[in-house]
C-alpha cells in the first residue's frame, strides 16, 4: 500500500493495464481448459439429477387400462392385414388403410403430396383418421402417428397394426376429453411434414410442393406420440427418441410420463435411443456410457436432423417423442409383445388426455445422460459462456495492444520533478479499414456460396458437388486476392519507408516501442514528432474475428446449444492461437489446419468417418435443408465459413 500510494493514479493504472494485458491471454487459455473440463464433466452422475414429473395434471399410469386380450388378438389380426397391404403402391395401401379405419368407425381420409427438391422428387399418400372424443368440444387433440417406413428401413408393421387396434379400443371408451388423430404417413419425414403443414393450413399448391388440403380435422394438437415398431415380432426394450428439427426438444414431461408408465402399469425396459447397455457398478464404464448417450443427442442436435418423425411436430409447438421397439435377440430382459405395447400406449394417451393446458411445467432445455437422468440448462450453459468470454478476453488483449492506453504515460517536467500523466487518448490510431473490408468481403462470399449451393441453374451436368467446387473457387479467389493485395501493399510501404529512413539518416531510438508492430510506417516523415504506427492489419482482423466468434458462439447457444458447443470447441484453439509467423512454413501449416476445419474440410472428414462418398454427404445436407429447413447449411455458409475465410486470410497476412 505504501508503495502504491506513492504512485500517481496514472501510474497505478499503467501497472494494472500491464498486468491485465500480460495475463489476459493466459487467462483466456485457462478458461478454455475450464470450459473443456466442464463439458467433459457434464455426463458424470454427480452433475445430473433424477427426472421427475413436474406437471401434476398428467398423473401417469393412474388410469385403469382397458386394452385386453381381445384387443391384442385384434392387433395381431391387423398385423396380418398390414403385412398384406404393405407391398401395394402408395395410393392403394393408403386407401386400404382408410377403409380399415372407417370399418372401426373413425372418420378417415387420405392426403396426396408431392415434394421436389433440387435433386429428387417425392410423392406419396398419407392416411389419417380422427376419433372424436364423445365428451369434448373438439378444440384439442392428441396425435398417434406411424410412418410406413421404420427407422430400420423395414415396414413399420406392428406400429400401424397398433394404431388400428388402439382406434378400436378407444372407440369403446368414454373418458377422452381430447380428440385422437391417427396418422399413417408415407415416405420418411416428408409425408408427416406434408400432413402437418396441411393440418395447420400452410399447404402449398406449387408445382414443386403440393399438399392436398385435409378433409377431416380436429382441434389444436397438444401432444403427439410417434410409433416405430418394425416387423411383426416381439421386442426386448423400448427406446425413446426425442431430438427435433434444429435441436429443439420436447418438454421433458413427455419422457417422464413414459418413464413412469414403463416402471408401473406396463413394465418394459426403457432406454434412450436404440442403445442397450448392461447395468454396471463400474464408475468409468458408467461415465463412458453416459458420455456416449449425451454425444448421440448432441450430434443430432448440432446437425439439426430429427431422430424420428416426432421432430417435425416440434416445429409446430407440439411436444412429441418417438417410441421405438428394440429387438435385440439374446438381450437379458423379458421380451414383450403387442399386448404390453398396447397397454403402455393407452396409458400414455390417457395421461396426456388429462392435460389441462399445453405442457409447460418441466424443462425444455436439457441434456439426457440416461433415460432417468437429466442435466439442466443451469449446468450446461456456463461452459459455453466461459468459452465465449475467453474469445472476448483474447480480443480485448489484442484491442489493448493496438493502442497505447493505459500503458504509455506522458512525462511532464515541472521544475526539477518529472510528473507522469495519463494520456487523454491513444496516440496510436486503430486502422480498421483492411480488417473490416476483409470481414465484409468474407461475409459476402459466404452468402454467395449459399446462393450457389441452393440455386438451380438448369445447366447440363449440374450436381451439388460441382456447385461446391464453384463455391470453393469463389472462396479461394477471395483469399488469394486479399492476401496478395496486402503483401504488395506492405512491400510498397516498406520500400517507401526505407527511402525515408535513409533520408533522415538518424537512429530513431525512440521508435515505436512496446508492442509487436515494428517501426515501418508510411508517415514517419519527421523523427521529432514521430507518430506511433498503427497496429498491424492482422491484429485488427484477429480482434474482429475473435469478437465475432464470441458473438456467434454465445448467441447460437441460446438457440441450439449443441451446435454452439461444436463450433466453439472446434474453432477456439486455432482462432486464438494462430497468428501470422515470420516463417512462411508455419503460416502455411496454420492455414492448412484452418482449411481442414472449413465446411468443405469438415465434409471430407464426415464422409471419411461414415465411409460415404463426399457427394452423398453434401446432397444429404442439401436435402435436409430443403425438406426440413435445418439450419446447418445456412449457419455454415453465412456464419461459419466467413469467419473461417477471414481466419485463413489473417494467418497469411504480412507480420507487420
Amino acid at each position, binding site marked *: 500500500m505504501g508503495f502504491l500510494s506513492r504512485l*500517481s*493514479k*496514472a*501510474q497505478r*493504472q499503467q501497472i494494472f493495464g500491464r498486468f491485465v494485458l500480460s495475463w489476459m491471454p493466459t487467462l483466456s487459455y485457462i478458461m478454455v481448459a475450464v470450459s473443456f473440463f466442464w463439458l467433459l464433466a457434464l455426463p458424470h452422475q454427480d452433475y445430473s439429477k433424477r427426472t421427475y414429473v413436474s406437471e401434476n395434471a398428467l398423473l401417469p399410469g393412474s388410469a385403469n387400462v382397458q386394452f385386453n386380450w381381445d384387443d391384442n388378438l385384434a392387433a395381431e389380426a391387423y398385423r396380418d392385414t398390414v403385412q398384406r397391404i404393405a407391398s401395394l403402391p402408395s395410393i392403394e395401401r393408403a386407401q386400404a388403410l382408410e377403409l380399415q379405419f372407417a370399418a372401426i368407425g373413425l372418420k378417415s381420409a387420405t392426403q396426396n403430396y408431392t415434394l421436389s427438391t433440387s435433386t429428387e422428387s417425392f410423392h406419396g399418400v398419407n392416411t389419417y383418421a380422427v376419433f372424436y372424443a364423445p365428451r369434448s368440444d373438439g378444440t384439442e387433440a392428441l396425435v398417434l402417428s406411424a410412418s410406413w417406413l421404420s427407422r430400420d428401413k423395414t415396414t413399420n408393421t406392428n406400429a400401424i397394426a397398433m394404431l388400428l387396434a388402439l382406434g378400436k379400443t378407444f372407440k369403446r371408451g368414454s373418458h377422452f376429453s381430447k380428440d385422437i388423430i391417427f396418422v399413417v404417413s408415407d415416405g420418411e419425414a416428408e409425408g408427416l411434414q406434408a400432413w402437418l403443414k396441411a393440418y395447420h393450413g400452410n399447404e402449398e399448391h406449387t408445382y414443386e410442393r403440393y399438399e392436398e388440403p385435409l378433409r377431416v380435422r380436429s382441434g389444436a394438437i397438444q401432444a403427439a406420440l410417434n410409433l416405430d415398431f418394425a416387423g411383426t415380432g416381439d421386442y426386448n426394450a423400448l427406446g425413446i427418441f426425442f431430438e427435433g428439427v434444429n435441436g*429443439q*426438444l420436447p418438454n421433458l414431461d413427455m419422457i417422464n410420463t413414459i418413464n413412469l408408465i414403463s416402471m408401473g402399469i406396463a413394465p418394459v425396459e426403457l432406454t434412450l435411443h436404440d442403445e442397450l447397455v448392461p447395468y454396471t457398478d463400474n464408475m468409468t464404464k458408467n461415465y463412458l456410457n453416459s458420455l456416449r448417450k449425451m454425444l448421440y443427442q448432441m450430434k443430432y442436435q448440432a446437425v439439426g436432423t430429427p431422430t424420428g418423425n416426432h421432430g417435425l411436430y416440434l416445429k409446430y*409447438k407440439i411436444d412429441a417423442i418417438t417410441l421405438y421397439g428394440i429387438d435385440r435377440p439374446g438381450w437379458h430382459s423379458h421380451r414383450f409383445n403387442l399386448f404390453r405395447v398396447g397397454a403402455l400406449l393407452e396409458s400414455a394417451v390417457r395421461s396426456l388426455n388429462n392435460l389441462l393446458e*399445453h405442457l*409447460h411445467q418441466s424443462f*425444455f*432445455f436439457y441434456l439426457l445422460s440416461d433415460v432417468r437422468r437429466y442435466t439442466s440448462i443451469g449446468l450446461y450453459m456456463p461452459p459455453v459462456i466461459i468459452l465465449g468470454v475467453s474469445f*472476448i478476453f483474447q480480443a*480485448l488483449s489484442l*484491442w489493448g495492444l493496438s493502442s497505447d*492506453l493505459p500503458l504509455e504515460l*506522458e512525462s*511532464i517536467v*515541472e521544475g526539477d520533478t518529472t*510528473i*507522469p*500523466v*495519463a*494520456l*487523454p*487518448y*491513444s*496516440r496510436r*490510431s486503430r486502422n480498421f479499414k483492411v480488417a473490416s473490408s476483409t470481414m465484409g468481403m468474407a461475409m459476402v462470399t459466404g452468402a454467395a456460396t449459399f446462393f450457389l449451393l441452393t440455386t438451380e441453374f438448369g445447366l447440363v451436368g449440374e450436381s451439388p458437388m460441382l456447385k461446391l467446387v464453384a463455391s470453393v473457387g469463389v472462396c479461394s479467389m477471395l483469399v488469394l486476392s486479399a492476401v496478395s493485395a496486402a503483401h504488395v501493399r506492405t512491400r510498397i510501404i516498406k520500400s517507401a519507408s526505407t527511402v525515408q529512413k535513409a533520408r533522415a539518416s538518424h537512429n530513431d531510438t525512440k521508435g515505436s516501442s512496446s508492442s509487436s508492430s515494428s517501426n515501418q510506417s508510411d508517415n514517419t516523415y519527421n523523427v*521529432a*514528432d*514521430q*507518430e506511433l504506427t498503427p497496429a498491424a492489419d492482422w491484429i485488427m482482423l484477429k480482434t474482429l474475428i475473435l*469478437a465475432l466468434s464470441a*458473438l456467434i458462439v*454465445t*448467441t447460437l447457444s*441460446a*438457440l441450439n446449444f449443441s451446435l454452439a458447443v461444436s463450433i466453439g470447441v472446434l474453432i477456439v484453439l486455432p482462432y486464438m492461437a494462430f497468428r501470422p509467423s515470420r516463417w512462411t512454413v508455419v503460416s502455411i501449416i496454420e492455414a492448412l489446419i484452418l482449411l481442414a476445419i472449413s465446411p468443405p474440410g469438415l465434409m471430407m472428414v464426415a464422409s471419411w468417418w461414415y465411409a460415404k462418398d463426399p457427394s452423398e454427404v453434401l446432397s444429404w445436407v442439401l436435402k435436409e435443408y430443403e425438406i426440413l429447413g435445418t439450419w446447418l447449411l445456412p449457419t455454415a455458409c453465412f456464419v461459419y465459413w466467413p469467419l473461417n475465410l477471414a481466419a485463413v486470410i489473417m494467418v497469411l497476412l504480412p507480420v507487420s
Partner: protein
Amino acid sequence: MAKGLSSNNAVAVFGTAVALRLALFQFPALASLLGERVEISTPVTSFKRLSEGVFLFTNGVPPYDGGVVHQAPLLLGLFYPIISSPLLVNLLYILIDLAIGYMLLQITAIKDKDYAKEKKITQYGGKEEEPGMSGLSVATLYLFNPYTIASCIGRSTILYSNAAVAAAIWMGMKGNKSLAMFNVAVATYLSLYPSMLIIPVILMLTRKIDDNDLTKKVAIRCTGLFAGSLVALFALSFVLVNSWDFFGSVYGTILTVSDLTPNLGLCWYFFIEMFDQFRPFFLVVFQIHVFIFAVPVSIKLRKYPLFVSFLLCAIMGTFKGYPSVGDASLYLGLLPLSSEIFKYMRYSFLVTNLFMYSTLLAPIFWYLWVYVGSGNANFFYAIGLVYGIGEIILMIDSTFALLRRDFESQSPPETTGQDAALGWDREVVQK
C-alpha cells in the same frame, strides 16, 4: 465537402444506397417480415397501422375511432394519394432516407466552417488537432447503418420524424429561424418527444450572437415561431380529419403508453407487471425522466449544440415508451457530427459489442418466446435491458469524451503542469 453532391464519391455513395434499398425492396417478403418485427416497427410507427388508417380515412370512417391508428393525421394525408402504389411508397421512403443523408452532409459542411474559425487544440508533439470526419463519411455511416436500412425496408414511419429532426438541425446550423422552428414543430407533431430539441436548435441559431439581449429576443421569437407552426399543423390536421380525436389517439398513446406491445424499450414490461393503482405515478416518473435532461444538458454543453441534439435524441431513443432501431439510426447518425471526440472515447469496444449482441439476441429470444414456446417474456425484456445499457454507456462515454476534449482545449497537455499530477483527475482539480 461543402459542394455537396457534386463529387464522384458522393454520387457513388448515394447511388449505392439507393441501389441497395431498391434491391431489398424487391423482396416483398423481407419488407413485410421487417415491418412486423417489434424491434423495427412499434405501435406508433408501424406501416401496417398507417395503411389501416389510410384505408379507414379513404372509406370515410373516422380513422382514430378504432384505437388502432396512432400516427399523425397529416401522415395519413401524405400517404392517402400514394398508398395504392407500393412502388411510390417505397420510393418515398428511399427519398427521405437519402434526404437525411444529404442533410447530415450539409450539416457537417457548416460545422467544418465553424470549426475552421475556432482556436486549434494543441495535441501531443505540438501538432494541431486534425478536423473530424468528412461530410460524406458521416452520410455514409448513416446510409449504410444496418439499423437505418432495416428501418427503411421495414417502412417504419419514425423515418419522417427523423427527417424533420435532421432538417431542423440543418436549418438551425444554417441560421434559418423560421424553417428550423417549423421543422422542430413537424418533428414534435409527428412524435412529440423531439419538442425538446427546440433548445439545442435555438442554441445553434444564436451561437454567433454575442449580445445577451439579442439572444433573448431571438429565443423568444423562435419559441413563438415554434408554437405558431405547431398550432398551424394541428389546425391543418383538424381540417383533414374533421375532429380532435387524433390528440388522444396520437399523443395520448405516446404519453400514457397504453399499447403494451413488446418493444426494445424499458416501459412495456414494467407497465404490464404493475398494479393499476401505481400506474399513473410511474407513468409520470417515466415520462418526466425523458424530458428532464433537456435543460441541464443544454446548459452544461451549450457550446456544443450539435452534441446536445445527439444526446437528447439518444435519451429519447432510450427512454421513450416506444423506441425502435429507427431512433437508434437517428442518434447514431448524429454522433459522427462530433467525430473529433471519438479518440477520447474509452468504451467503444464494449458499446459496439452490446449493440451487436442485443441486435442478434432480440430476434432469437423473441423466437424462443413466441414461436418455440420454450422461453418467456423475461428473455426478450432482458435483451431490451442490455440494449438500454449499451445506449446509456454510449451516452455517458461520448459525454465524457466531449468534456475531456473541452478540457484539453482550455489547457493543452504540455501546459497543465502541477495540476496534471493527478492524471485523470486533472479536470476535478481545475475546478
